């Protein structure tokens, strides 16, 4: 069974959105004795010397038994990692300062019980590892099952975060050997700016027309249904129809009654630096969405026309997150 087919099956089993499964390639497994393994080898040497010195057959047998156990243990440690498929669904963006949940799907359908696997972010540079961005995660896997796990990654600044290299390691069962493998990911996680700022939502902006300045009204004109798309506000779903077991439908309203506003870089005040402006715009966008406004976004290097809904909000926040990352592309 090729790896690809396994991954195609994944969503159907767990009901995940089929988009953007990012698979780690199966990697080489490295294995080396730990320092306890080296101690153990030293102990065996001492025991062997004793056996030779006393010409004691049972001492030989014990020494050889422990030595063989060490070899078998090595095989078990290696087996603990072998044949494990790991994939990461697309990461949900988070706001800077919050923990990023890096989801992992550990596909153990071809394996036995795996004990004490530790996953951690593993930067190539040692100094970066020391101030490691996340806590290692230790999990056990049931045989023949797919397990979901989340690796928490600390975020500090907005922008794009590349988890890059993950390391999976295990010393089980004897701790005499450490087996590990690296998992490379080219996934890019989006970190929104931290929502912050002291200014009120600029409802009365210079861009707003008279018509647009009016308060939002709850009596928009109903114009019809459209099929649900990812990102549509759940408030506009026709739940009654859904309860009649019809597919998800979204009610459409004419936007004439909605208030529209344009969130602009220049509204943030003259004294603010770049990050403060981004935080302020982020906060505004959240509030605007919460309060039902139609809103647009305008920052140097990007402009989003007026709109509303979950997808629109994400588009705005992504634009804010990517400010200054001109060369990066998603």
């Amino acid at each position: 069974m090729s790896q690809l087919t396994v991954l195609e099956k994944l969503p159907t089993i767990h009901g995940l959105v089929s988009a953007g499964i990012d698979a780690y390639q199966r990697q080489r497994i490295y294995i080396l004795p730990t320092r306890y393994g080296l101690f153990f080898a030293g102990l065996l040497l001492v025991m062997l010397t004793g056996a030779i010195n006393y010409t004691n057959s049972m001492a030989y047998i014990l020494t050889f038994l422990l030595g063989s156990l060490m070899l078998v243990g090595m095989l078990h440690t290696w087996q603990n990692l072998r044949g494990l498929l790991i994939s990461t669904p697309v990461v949900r963006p988070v706001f800077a300062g919050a923990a990023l949940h890096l989801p992992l799907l550990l596909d153990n359908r071809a394996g036995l019980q795996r004990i004490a696997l530790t996953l951690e972010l593993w930067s190539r540079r040692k100094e970066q590892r020391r101030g490691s961005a996340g806590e290692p995660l230790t999990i056990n896997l049931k045989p023949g099952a797919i397990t979901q796990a989340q690796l928490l990654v600390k975020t500090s600044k907005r922008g794009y975060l590349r988890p890059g290299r993950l390391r999976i390691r295990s010393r089980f069962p004897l701790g005499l050997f450490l087996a590990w493998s690296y998992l490379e990911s080219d996934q890019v996680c989006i970190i929104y700016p931290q929502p912050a700022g002291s200014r009120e939502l600029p409802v009365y902006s210079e861009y707003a027309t008279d018509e647009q300045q009016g308060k939002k009204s709850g009596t928009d004109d109903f114009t019809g249904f459209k099929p649900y798309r990812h990102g549509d506000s759940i408030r506009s779903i026709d739940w009654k129809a859904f309860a009649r077991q019809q597919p998800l439908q979204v009610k459409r309203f004419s936007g004439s009654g909605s208030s529209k506003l344009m969130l602009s870089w220049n509204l943030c005040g003259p004294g603010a630096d770049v990050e403060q402006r981004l935080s302020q715009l982020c906060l505004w966008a959240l509030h605007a969405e919460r309060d039902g406004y139609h809103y647009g976004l305008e920052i140097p290097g990007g402009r989003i026309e007026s709109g509303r809904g979950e997808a629109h909000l994400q588009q705005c926040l992504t634009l804010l997150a990517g400010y200054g990352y001109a060369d990066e592309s998603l």
Partner: protein
Amino acid sequence: MRARFAAISPRYLWLFTGIGLAVLPHSARIPVWITLGFFLLCLWKLLFERPRPGLRFLGRLVKLAIAVLIVSGTLITYGTLVGRDAGIALLILLLGMKFLETGNQRDYYITSYIGMFLLLTNFLYSQSIPAALYMFIVVLVFVGTLIAENDVTDCLPVRRRLTIAGAMLLQALPLMLVLFVLFPRLPGPLWGLPRDAHAGRSGIDDEMEPGSISRLILSNEIAFRVEFAGMIPEPRNRYWRGPVLGQTDGVKWFPDKPRPFTADVAVTGEPVAYTVTLEPTDQSWLYGLELPAQPPEGGLFAADLLIKTAAPVRSRRRYSLSSYTDFKIIERGVEVLAAARQLPVGYHGRAVALGQSWREQGLNERQLINTALRLFNEQEFYYTTTPPPLLQDTVDQFLFETRRGFCEHYATAFTVLMRAAGIPARIITGYQGGTVNPFDGYLVVRQRDAHAWVEVWLEDSGWTRVDPTAAVAPARILGGMENALPEGLVEIPLGLRNNETALTIWLRLRDSVDAVNNRWNQWILSYDDRQQRLLLGHLGLGDFDLRALGVTLVLVLLLVFTGIYLWLFKRPIVHKNAARSLYDQFCAKLARLGIYRAANEGPMDFAARAQNRRRDLTVAINTITRLYIDVRYGDRVEQLESLKRQVRNFKPARVNAADEALFRAKHSGRNMVSR
């Protein structure tokens, strides 16, 4: 208290079990306070350690105090810290202390490693089969101990940890065997062993006084085993020659000083070929049936025809000999004969007077010997393992007062009488007799077969064996110890002595156990560099050098290792086989109803046909068939459990007599159902 135990980390319980089991066999040999001290240290840890943030469990001063107590206690008990016994005692106490202060992972590992080493030291005392089995149990616990440490989320129950440990142990066994057979054996020791390394072995000494042989009579320990190429000689010819004692100080008898070879040996008849497996004696001589034609490899004849070795026999030793039971030792050394007439001045006055009086009667040599033997035979002399203590002159008191003695009493008294009468005489110690094990045909000679007899020098026949014990207790020589001393069979349980059948069964059981032990000794325990060379020669590896052996070892190891790897590698698809065997069970249950699956019938076709026969079982048959196909061909491993459950619960009743009859008819013809 229960709450306290519940709070103990399971890791420490594992570790404690491991090291406790490693210490246990030593506890019979070491002073009680050491065992107690060890377990107290362990209990202290288990009961009183509480995690206190920022504080160590033990202060540095407390540790220092314990260390001082341990070292000084060992010094006082043993007078030293080095050597086998003192070293092990010290190690046990230090292990307890290490366990007490175990805090982090490093301590945990070191403690378990010391425990494993301690397990090894047990083999310096006993390498028996029970000791070996015990070792496997303790190793199993130690593997579980390491698993407990590495199962960081504590997700495995105790049983599962033991199962994993057991599986690993089984996988390690083939590798262990390869290493045992092929790992190049070096002749040990590499350096000097501690002086007490082989202490505590019982056996014949090279000096003798009253009581030194009779103390062996209570020992059922095996001295050596003999494998004869042909017929086993009769009991009366089974004299196993040991040290020859020609010197005495009036109480003890000693061997002669080393002197040039002055004896000639003439032999007649057919030689008897045999191989001896000698238990370690810590003495530098070998036993041979009187009289070996040639010393074995690694041995030399001393002037008194004892086979001497260069170094004490400290491990079990195999050697081949061929002996002539019909032999003649002619002595050419005049001064040797003169020395063999010497008696210490001021001892054995009455015995010497008696011997001289016989001489003055003008008796010739043979008449003198017979007179002495008749004395033992016709007067009130008794053969006993519990002679009364001899507090005065040992020979005089025995000859004229107590008249109860063991072979060394008779041999000593006879030698003194002969020397007093002017006949050269000397005492030979060794073993006499032995019993044949009916299971493997080996002759087993035990410590209680220890014996002392006499050689007198006669003009015409040279050094001639005379066994004065035979004059008192002929059964001892003809039938072995068991016949001579019914009350001396200490190893037979009291209840069995009067029950003929039970006694026979008991004796046969003992023989079979001994045969197993003998195999163990022959194949496992005496496997050394010599045996390895022999075995590889048999395997056609011929004259190997160390490098060739090393290469062979690595190759075979790789092969076995690959085998284990492939076995592990194959395991993930085990569910397919499991599904198959469950489905087979299902088919067998249907076959009991007379519904047989044809060899060429697929599961679906069979299910359809079976349903037609038994409409009432439609649901069950369909469920099981679908599950089977899912697991076996659809890789739906997760369904295996429900398949198992369904098959187990599938208990169709037999409904009509026709089915029953068909089932019977089929089964009377053949027992196997084709699938």
